[in-house]
């Protein structure tokens, strides 16, 4: 016997609940009921939301009342003291006062009528005051700005309080007319309301004039915008409701439009202070948002939507099947734009900064850019690289335009605007540095252990569990969501999470690795654009100061970028170790390539800087501007030595001739500057000492590496000596050069730098096995040095006993010149010359490898 149909159905349900749930979907009634339930739930949530908003308004109104009361408390207190004092006095005076001033029966009615008139009068007066302000200052503003005034809470509260006062008076008056007892408490209450209305009017009436300045509305816009952001983050009951998400997005968009309208108003009013205040508020909101953005689900309707057509060949079978069967097209895919907020903010900021620059308020621009330095660091810490690029781009045009106005010579008398432009450029070029530092720190905190803890949250039954972690890149959040959904699917099917934690961690680490690769590449390109390309363009436009400033910042950037790559590579190596399943194609980040790209960029910037040197040295010395020449000279000198040390011949050949000229020029400048100061006149020798030192070391290093860098050094010096008019002039110069190495009690800071060069040189010789760290070796007889160059052998022999590059240069070049015959070499040069002569005389070991792999 067959079981009844409903029994069979019940059996089916019991056999497989999931199949039953699917079959339910074929009943139109199911969808209708589901819709009704959803609408009901939505209504309930809306009611709850409204209640929360209302409760918040009440709380704010209470706070405003408390504020107003605190402001008028002393006045009310004074009034009360008066009334009470009079009352006490009345009691002491006895009944005769009542007899003297009897209260007529109509007093109560009259009193209340008067209060009613007062309330109506105040209401009308306040409204008129506001209307006057609005009609004057806001006659041509967009509706939403006027709406902001209307929604301004203190004013709204006062309006409501006045209306309430009028209503209470009307009711009590009606009661008296109908001979209903209203009691003395009511009289006291309306009296209190009247006092509040009168004293508050004084405060609020004055405050109404603040509305002439549109920025007075900023705190309300900022607060509402931050509230809209907070409401879509976990912890708020409606954060995961698509309708509420979309509502808050619209609200935020509306408030951002208000910001833009406020900018328009401020531009019309040419109010730099207002624009700066708007920028401050916008940046503060961006900071607020960036700290919470990672807690918003990727598919949230908080993110504005864009649409994309689906690919027929890759779309799921079900959708393609339905489309084929119904003869329709595939429905476009709705994609979230995760940067819609930043795009809006950046657009407003760009407009605002441009307006400030047009108004000539460059100091305000610098102030805003300075605020962005910390913001960019935070963006880096929150992995918001693309968003940071938007911010940098917002400043780019203004900075570029203003930079073109910086002269390289013929400076104006008033340097303020030039200083401001340079300050703006300085701050702008600092932005990428802070970004990379924040970015590297963020990745360093994202250790494997932490990643594992984050992935454990995917097992939670709470939908918001995965969003309660610290900042993660959006790509990793999306992967976390995939893992969370897969684990939920596994739990639905198998009753437990199937994929182990190690595989989930691996999955997420893979996405982080990919994100790291993309970001490193972006950062590299961004650095090249901001520093190399910009410096190149300014140099082509003969703006040497600007090009030098950008190059110098770029050099700092290169150091930080190299350092960042090194830090990231350590993190990446840890991630790669998680690849156990070999299921994913892990991005191969070529750290060496990235490192060499940073080095190439650095070298390019050094060459650019060296090209600026001749022009920087010719401008007049202005104490109010930074010492760009000195800074560029120092960088190029150091780079010259470094290129010689590392065997970067092409870079050395490019840099040395410019360094040569710059050193002579620097010496002349110092000589001119300290001509009347005998104590400091010796400082003029310092650039010459640098030049001699680099020349001397380059002779040794050239022989050591069998390179051709010594040729350019000799050529430069030969050209210089040839340019001198006569032998006596050449002799004089030789004497000056000897004086440079003469013992002096004055100790210059550059001497320290040259010591560092010497130590670097010694380290290289030690690496090659020519010198040892053994102290006692200094006291033994000189050993034969296995190198074919007599100069190298002589230098190695004396490197530990006070022979510097300057001495090598004098011995190897200056005292090889015919003009030097009559000059007595300095003591250490004499010693070195002896060593050199001995080595020249001795036979070099023929079997020695010139590249140097000998050992002591």
């Amino acid at each position: 016997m067959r079981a009844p149909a409903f029994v069979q159905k019940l059996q089916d349900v019991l056999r497989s609940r999931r199949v039953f749930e699917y079959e339910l979907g074929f009943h139109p009634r199911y969808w209708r009921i589901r819709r009704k339930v959803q609408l009901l739930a939505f209504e309930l949530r809306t009611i709850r939301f409204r209640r929360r908003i209302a409760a918040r308004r009440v709380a704010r109104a209470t706070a405003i009342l408390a504020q107003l009361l605190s402001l008028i408390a002393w006045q009310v207190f004074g009034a009360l003291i008066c009334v009470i004092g009079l009352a006490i006095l009345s009691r002491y005076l006895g009944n005769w006062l009542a007899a003297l001033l009897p209260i007529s029966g109509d007093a109560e009615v009259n009193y209340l009528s008067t209060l009613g008139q007062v309330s109506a009068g105040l209401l009308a007066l306040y409204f008129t005051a506001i209307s006057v302000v609005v009609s004057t200052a806001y006659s041509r503003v967009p509706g939403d700005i006027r709406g902001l005034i209307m929604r301004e809470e203190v004013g709204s509260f006062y309006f409501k309080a006045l209306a309430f006062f009028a209503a209470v008076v009307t009711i009590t008056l009606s009661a008296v007319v109908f001979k209903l007892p209203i009691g003395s408490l009511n009289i006291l209450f309306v009296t209190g309301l009247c006092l509040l209305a009168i004293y508050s009017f004084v405060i609020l009436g004055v405050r109404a004039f603040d509305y002439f300045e549109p920025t007075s509305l900023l705190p309300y816009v900022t607060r509402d915008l931050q509230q809209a952001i907070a409401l879509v983050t976990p912890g708020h009951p409606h954060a995961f409701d698509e309708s509420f998400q979309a509502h808050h997005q619209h609200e935020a968009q509306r408030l951002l439009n208000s910001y833009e309208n406020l900018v328009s108003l401020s531009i019309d009013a040419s109010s730099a202070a207002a624009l700066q205040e708007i920028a401050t508020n916008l940046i503060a909101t961006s900071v607020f948002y960036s700290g919470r953005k990672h807690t918003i689900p990727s598919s949230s309707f908080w993110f504005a939507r864009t649409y994309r057509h689906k690919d027929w060949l890759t779309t799921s079978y079900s959708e393609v099947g339905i489309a084929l069967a119904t003869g329709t097209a595939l429905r476009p895919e709705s994609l979230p734009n995760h940067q819609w907020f930043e795009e809006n903010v950046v657009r407003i900021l760009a407009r605002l900064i441009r307006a400030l620059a047009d108004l000539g308020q460059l100091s305000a621009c610098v102030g805003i850019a300075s605020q962005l330095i910390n913001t960019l660091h935070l963006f880096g810490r929150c992995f918001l690289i693309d968003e940071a690029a938007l911010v940098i781009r917002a400043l780019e045009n203004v900075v570029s335009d203003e930079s073109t106005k910086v002269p390289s010579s013929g400076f104006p008398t008033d340097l303020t605007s030039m200083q401001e432009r340079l300050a703006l450029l300085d701050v702008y070029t600092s932005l990428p540095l802070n970004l990379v530092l924040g970015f590297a720190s963020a990745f360093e905190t994202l250790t494997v252990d932490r990643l594992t803890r984050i992935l454990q949250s995917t097992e939670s039954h709470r939908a918001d569990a995965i969003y309660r972690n610290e900042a993660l890149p959006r790509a990793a959040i999306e992967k976390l969501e995939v893992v969370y959904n897969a684990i939920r699917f596994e739990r639905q099917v198998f009753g437990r999470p199937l994929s182990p934690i190690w595989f989930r961690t691996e999955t997420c680490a893979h996405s982080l690795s990919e994100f790291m690769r993309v970001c490193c590449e972006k950062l590299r390109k961004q650095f090249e654009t901001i520093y190399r390309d910009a410096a190149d363009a300014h140099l082509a436009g003969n703006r040497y100061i600007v090009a030098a400033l950008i190059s110098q910042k770029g050099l700092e950037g290169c150091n930080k970028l190299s350092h960042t790559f090194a830090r990231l590579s350590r993190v990446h190596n840890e991630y790669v170790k998680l690849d156990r399943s070999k299921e994913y194609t892990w991005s191969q980040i070529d750290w060496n390539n990235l490192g060499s790209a940073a080095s190439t960029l650095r070298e390019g910037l050094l060459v650019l800087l060296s090209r600026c040197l001749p022009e920087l040295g010719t401008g007049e010395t202005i104490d109010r501007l930074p010492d760009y020449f000195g800074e560029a000279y120092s960088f190029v000198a150091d780079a010259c030595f470094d290129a010689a040390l590392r065997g970067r011949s092409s870079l050395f050949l490019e840099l040395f001739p410019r360094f040569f000229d710059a050193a002579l020029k620097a010496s002349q400048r110092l000589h001119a500057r300290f001509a009347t100061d005998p104590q400091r006149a010796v400082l003029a020798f310092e650039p010459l000492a640098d030049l001699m030192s680099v020349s001397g070391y380059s002779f040794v290093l050239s022989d050591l590496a069998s390179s051709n860098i010594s040729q350019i050094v000799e050529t430069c010096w030969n050209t210089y000596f040839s340019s001198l008019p006569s032998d006596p002039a050449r002799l004089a110069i030789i004497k000056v050069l000897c004086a440079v190495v003469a013992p002096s009690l004055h100790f210059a800071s550059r001497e320290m730098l040259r010591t560092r060069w010497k130590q670097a040189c010694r380290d290289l010789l030690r690496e090659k096995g020519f010198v040892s760290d053994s102290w006692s070796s200094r006291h033994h007889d000189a050993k034969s040095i296995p190198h074919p160059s007599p100069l190298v052998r002589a230098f190695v022999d004396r490197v530990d006993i006070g022979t510097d590059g300057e001495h090598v240069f004098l011995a190897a070049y200056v005292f090889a010149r015919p003009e030097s015959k009559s000059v007595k070499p300095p003591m250490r040069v004499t010693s070195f010359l002896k060593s050199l002569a001995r080595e020249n005389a001795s036979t070099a070991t023929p079997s020695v490898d010139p590249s140097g792999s000998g050992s002591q």
Partner: protein
Amino acid sequence: MTRRQQKSIRYYTDELPRGFDEFYTGMFIDDVADGLMPVGGEARVRNFSVRLEPPDDRLEEMLVTGLTSHEPSDSLADALCELFRLTAHEVCARDYAAYEIVYYDTDDQTVSGFDLAYIPAQRITIRRNYIRQELPRPYASERGYPSCVELARSDVVLFHAPKGLQSKIRRTRNSLSRLKDERLVPLVLEAQQSNLPYDFKIHQSALNVALADALKEIGWTARGLFNDRMLSYSLVYMHLLFERFKSRLREAFLQQLNDGLHQIGKVVGSSSYIEVVGLPTADEINAAFVELLSGKKAFTQIMEPFLRY
């Protein structure tokens, strides 16, 4: 002269077993049957072979021609693979497959060969000593056949899934046959016309969950239908489950065929049995599960031995 003595009645019917023509059930049956043994008896990577132990050329010749009747086979491996493919279809679709051992007698009463004749039936009753073939009554009366034929148990090779799998196959088949999606299109059209608040994504998601739920015991991944919903680990896990299922089915079929061969051997005078080597074994699959769980081996390496045979 050779005589073929078949007791069961051979007849043709257009009626397909339940689920055979259904979308997911049909795919499931095809995938089990096609993946059970190497197609054509030749494995692409594994060192697969089928042999008689002890070797018996005469019996092997009989088996090559007798195991399948649909198309001639050129080797024992080919014949066995084809038999198991057809048998797996039957077992997945209706729980069993019965074949009568039909001997070929010569005039001198010696057996020159045999074949396994498929026993079609509306219903088959299996008893300890006999198996009853029940024909559709109208068909039998129309042609003057008896409505049921009893066959000695020793004359029948009966294939079925091992006990632990029978209920799983049945449950899977039942669930899959309920998961038809041909009703989706009319529903979508109706939703478009009648303003029904229908959400295709939710319905599709319910279908995926129901499908995965139906297949979790067998491990069939419905030709990648869950690739977007599951992580690779779970997919590999399901693949291994499916391999374990096929391995158990294969071993059961082989045992049941060898039992039949034991009966045939008594008649043809042979004690050989069929041995299959080079296909995934239970131990291999268990080891793969351990490797998967430990994460010590790449997923592709774990899956490699099971992908090409």
